[in-house]
């Protein structure tokens, strides 16, 4: 992509943000479509419940609709969306903490399969991630789904960078160990 092409897109996105802030429905709809995958995916990978993820995604965008005037830029928009969906997911997980865990094999698969190198392995991994405690779970999702670095994750989760790294390190160790056992079962 050429520099001028990228700048042109950025300018159009800027205009879209401004227009959406002024109540332009079409502009807002475009913003929803541009970012719905990110928001839905974070919620889905965290909650492993498609219906709940959709509900949560809608709530995030409705909150955006109510607060659009406070969005300063496209970058701020992305940060804002991530922050809100992260907060809602963690709140939701805490509400569910006392309820019997939904058996992960009861969770329906996504309507559109992600491109996967090994579907069974990916499914197993996604389930293992969903079994992590909520903060490490969200750290892993933000790191590997959104490709964020620890400083960005720390800002979203309101925690020190060192804690993010610690969560990541421990989560990977646990996933490695659990995966070795799970894959062993799949292989049988």
């Amino acid at each position, binding site marked *: 992509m050429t520099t001028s092409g990228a700048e042109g897109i950025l300018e159009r996105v800027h205009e879209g943000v401004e227009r959406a802030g002024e109540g332009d429905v079409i502009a807002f709809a475009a913003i929803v479509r541009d970012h719905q995958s990110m928001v839905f995916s974070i919620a889905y990978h965290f909650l492993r419940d498609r219906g709940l993820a959709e509900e949560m995604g809608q709530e995030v965008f409705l909150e955006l609709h109510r607060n659009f005037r406070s969005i300063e830029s496209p970058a701020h928009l992305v940060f804002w969306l991530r922050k809100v969906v992260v907060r809602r997911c963690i709140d939701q997980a805490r509400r569910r903490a*006392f309820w019997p865990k939904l058996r992960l094999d009861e969770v329906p698969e996504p309507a559109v399969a992600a491109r996967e190198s090994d579907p069974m392995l990916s499914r197993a991994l996604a389930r293992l991630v969903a079994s992590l*405690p909520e*903060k*490490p779970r969200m750290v892993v999702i933000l790191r590997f789904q959104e490709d964020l670095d620890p400083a960005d994750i720390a800002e979203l989760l309101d925690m020190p960078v060192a804690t993010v*790294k610690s969560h990541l390190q421990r989560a990977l160790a646990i996933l490695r160990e659990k995966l070795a056992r799970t894959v062993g079962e799949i292989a049988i």
Partner: protein
Amino acid sequence: MKTLTAFFLAAAACYPQALDLKHLERLAGKAAESTNVTLDGALLQLGAKFLSAEKPDEARVKKLVAGLKAIYVKSFEFDKEGEYSEADIASVRNQLHAPEWSKIVDVRSRKGGDNAEIFIKTGGKDIGGLVIIASEPKELTIVNIVGRIDLDELSDLGGNFGIPKMEFQRTPKPPSKDDE
């Protein structure tokens, strides 16, 4: 905005038995994990209304909260020791000097530094309030319950459940290594 401020101040003034824990809010900035629950007035009633008498767990809670007016929980977990001071705890304790408050438990552990104090507020034959101050080197918890509460039933509730742990078991950190 003035109307809103007045509304909030009025709401806060409804429960004089509630402790002033605002000074602890700055600890959230230092905490690796913080838990803050404020349930009073209409919100408490709303929550209680949705408790099911048919589900055993919720039925127990429903029975427990029947006489409650408010519950406040502030809990902080830190990555290292020394993030809160004795003064933080003293300013909570200082609010419990009134004659209607009695300290019924005071556990001090010289070894691990795990301390716990329990205060109850008596009003006639019923307990009208409860404060738990639990402090460990890397954790500080204050629980303030306003209203009629049955201590035995509350303790039984806690005996069957762990706190939903949002963290791995704490282990010594390995030598610093950047995994990025």
